[in-house]
């Protein structure tokens, strides 16, 4: 039995862990979100959040190694969009508190943008037979050391209402 989420009445997109593929996926996702919600602003926010998350996965989960798979599962639940970003790279033990850095800092705006663009987001690492705790932004670190040492899947979920 697969512990990975199944996109019911949804769409699954997949890219390799290369920065050049992020915009392709995001533009496709934008079109899907516009079609589903009829709201370009909602779609733009989803696009911006997903772009930041994909960049984080490429840099921090896959350490800029190319040819690693990233899967994005999109589905609609009445007036809510659910987007799951799935990777098998280095797992996060916690979701950081979204904070806007000082102006002079050139990076570290990703989680701030994500937090501003979606209504809810949470993260979970799933191993071969067990699942780690669901992590929320600013929450306590989860004990995922054993999970992360073996084969695992990381799932970052965004919920966006419209």
């Amino acid at each position, binding site marked *: 039995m697969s512990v990975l989420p199944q996109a019911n009445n949804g769409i699954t997109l997949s890219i390799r862990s290369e920065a050049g593929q992020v915009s392709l996926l*995001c533009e496709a996702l934008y079109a899907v979100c516009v079609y589903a919600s009829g709201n370009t602003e909602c779609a733009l926010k989803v696009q*911006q959040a997903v*772009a930041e998350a994909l960049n984080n996965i490429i840099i921090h989960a896959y350490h800029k190694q190319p040819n690693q798979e990233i899967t994005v599962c999109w589905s609609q639940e009445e007036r809510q969009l659910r987007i799951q970003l799935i990777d098998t790279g280095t797992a996060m033990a916690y979701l950081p508190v979204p904070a806007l850095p000082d102006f002079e800092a050139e*990076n570290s705006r*990703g989680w701030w*943008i994500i937090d501003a663009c979606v209504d809810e987001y949470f993260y979970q690492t799933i191993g071969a037979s067990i699942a780690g705790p669901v992590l929320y932004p600013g929450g306590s670190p989860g004990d995922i050391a054993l999970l992360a040492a073996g084969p695992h899947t990381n799932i970052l979920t965004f919920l966006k209402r419209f």
Partner: protein
Amino acid sequence: MAAIMENVTFIDSSTCAILISAFKAMQLKKTGRLVLADSPVVQSLIELTRLHTVFEILPNQKSGIIGIDGRVKFAITIIGPVN
């Protein structure tokens, strides 16, 4: 100097990094710099990251910048260093 960001349909926070880097370079050289955009995508991210408090956003009609198609564009002026 101007960066024309017409028809931009996708940007991410790395764009912010480039704009800030340009701003810091401008501060070092004590010269002005102008960045242009007519895309809601660009404006959205600039406002989301509150960079509009540093990068002044002006309707292009005000700054005399209107596209040949007649659409109003936006000018993002990077404010010069305060002496």
